[in-house]
């Protein structure tokens, strides 16, 4: 499934997928394609992906970021402990972005965001965020990381 078509060196490697028991596939495909078109190497795991599968794919591909989608409202439970498991697996500075419909029902966005950031998620996106917003932030975060590593 991984895209092999990036001719030049990719801007970065991103593992994408829909976490948990969620089968919503449309946003996942659009995001994966947007990342590819922006010059990233994408390892798209599709739907029904577990934390372990995200981590294994990230280790295997030496990924820079995880782009985790969730549309069924259980993202918080599904992402619990993910940052700690990444560190255990040696993925010390991998970026973790989460987006979709990440909270159940109508909740204050700033509160939702706070809870995800506290779990060690780098960025969390409200419903209907266009893919390009996440991609621009990823480019910025990767550039900043490069600079700080000198």
């Amino acid at each position, binding site marked *: 499934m991984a895209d092999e078509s990036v001719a030049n060196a990719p801007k970065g490697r991103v593992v994408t997928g829909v976490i948990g028991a969620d089968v919503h596939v*449309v946003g996942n*495909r659009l995001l994966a394609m947007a990342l590819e078109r922006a010059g990233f190497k994408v390892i798209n795991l*599709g739907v*029904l992906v577990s934390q372990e599968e995200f981590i294994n794919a990230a280790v295997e591909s030496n990924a820079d970021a995880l782009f985790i989608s969730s549309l069924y409202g259980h993202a918080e439970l599904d992402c619990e402990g993910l940052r700690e498991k990444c560190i255990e697996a040696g993925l010390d500075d991998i970026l973790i972005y989460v987006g979709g419909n990440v909270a159940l029902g109508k909740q204050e966005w700033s509160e939702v965001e706070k809870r995800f950031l506290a779990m060690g998620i780098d960025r969390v996106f409200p419903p209907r965020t266009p893919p390009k917003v996440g991609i621009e932030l990823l480019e910025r975060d990767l550039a900043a990381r490069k600079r700080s590593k000198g």
Partner: protein
Amino acid sequence: MIDEGLFQALRREVLATWPTGQEVSDEAFEYYQRKGDSGVFHQRLQEAKAAGRTLLQPRGGVPLVHLQIELLRHLEQVGTADLLPLTVDSYTRQNRYEEAQRHLERSQQEGVALLNGFPVVNHGVRNSRAVLEAVAAPVQIRHGSPDARLLAEISFAAGYTSFEGGGITYNLPYSARVPLERSVRDWQYVDRLSGYYTERGVVINRESYGALTGIMVPPAIAVAISVFEALLAAEQGVKSITVGYGQNGHIIQDVAAVEVLGTLTQQYLQRFGFHDVDVTTCFHEWMGPFPMTEGRAFGLIGLGALTAALARATKVITKTPHEAYGVPTKEANAQGLLCSRLMVDTMAHQVPLDRAQVAEEARWIAREATAIVEKALELGEGRFDASVVRAFEAGVMDLPFCPSIYAQNKVMPIRDATGAVRYLEHGHLPFDKETLDRNQELIHQRMGAVDTDPLEQIEKDINFFLEAEGFSAVSGGS
């Protein structure tokens, strides 16, 4: 064709997987003979095809026998349905009969529906038969199961003579990790069982689920997949095949797609020597995101039925004004039928259609579909099952917005300036230069006019019929 000895051994194995399997026997043939039924569903389709009529069929399934009978009688008597459904619950589709049993028993105790369909396997032959016998119209089993072997056994023994699904169309849109090789093999069993009944005087109609993921499936992809499911069925002795297609919302393209679906399927069956197979067509009213407001929903249902009738589809699967909210009431279901009935019976023959435009679109759909089928046949080295598996592996056959890892998902559809579905990315579909040039030109006519991200356009294209969201041809989709 599956070897007879192997088939009978497999049957014993399959029938032993749940107690009601023991109710299956050759008594079924006596039952059919007593009823004078030699495949009533097939007969009804043939009559409609000969008369140029489009039959109406709703969806619908509830867990309890008396509630299912109440639902079907309402759809038949109030909704004027020509053909009826028995939609099977999600546990049964996944062969989780123990969970289905628990929810069925609780539904029985509490008198409420705790399953989203009728658990045919758990009800067994006798109870499933009771539903069929309570209505006049023929009833089809509809589900979404990658392994429907036991379901087919119980259904055919109970007296149901039409069965939806196939190794491709009931796997890829429904499952994430079921190997195509396995689902194709398990559906060869269902097709062989259909052939077994057919050879004994009971014609089983087999229908391919052509609506697939229901989200902007390019017509050529639906056609190519249908051709293979028809060939796989015919190879096992099936004589009555219905091929399907889901409305994309562009009348000319939709009509052209149904026409090519029927003719190309027939051509390939002929080419491989299956001369005595009857092919009929099924049109699915819009399977994508449905409007929340009833007025808009009825407009869309009417458009779907009208398109089906213009395309002379043998039958149309109707939607309901509750589609946006989940499982409809029987009353809402009947309203969707009545809206469709008006269009099919009184409107379609009054609407002129630009036949030259339909023919032009049909020519391209046939060209694309033929390219896919030919390449797949080449990869399969003379075997239809291997053709399918290898073609999906290579991306020569592909399905956009597919949850399964067994499709490459390299194809991305987009609408052109008129709303017809084209390819933003065609992945590894084996198209020639003229096909690709025409596609580029058509999407450029739309995208050239607006400086926006095509992926954002696609979201609008998917939500084509939603309030405040929908596609606008006049403004170039922006």
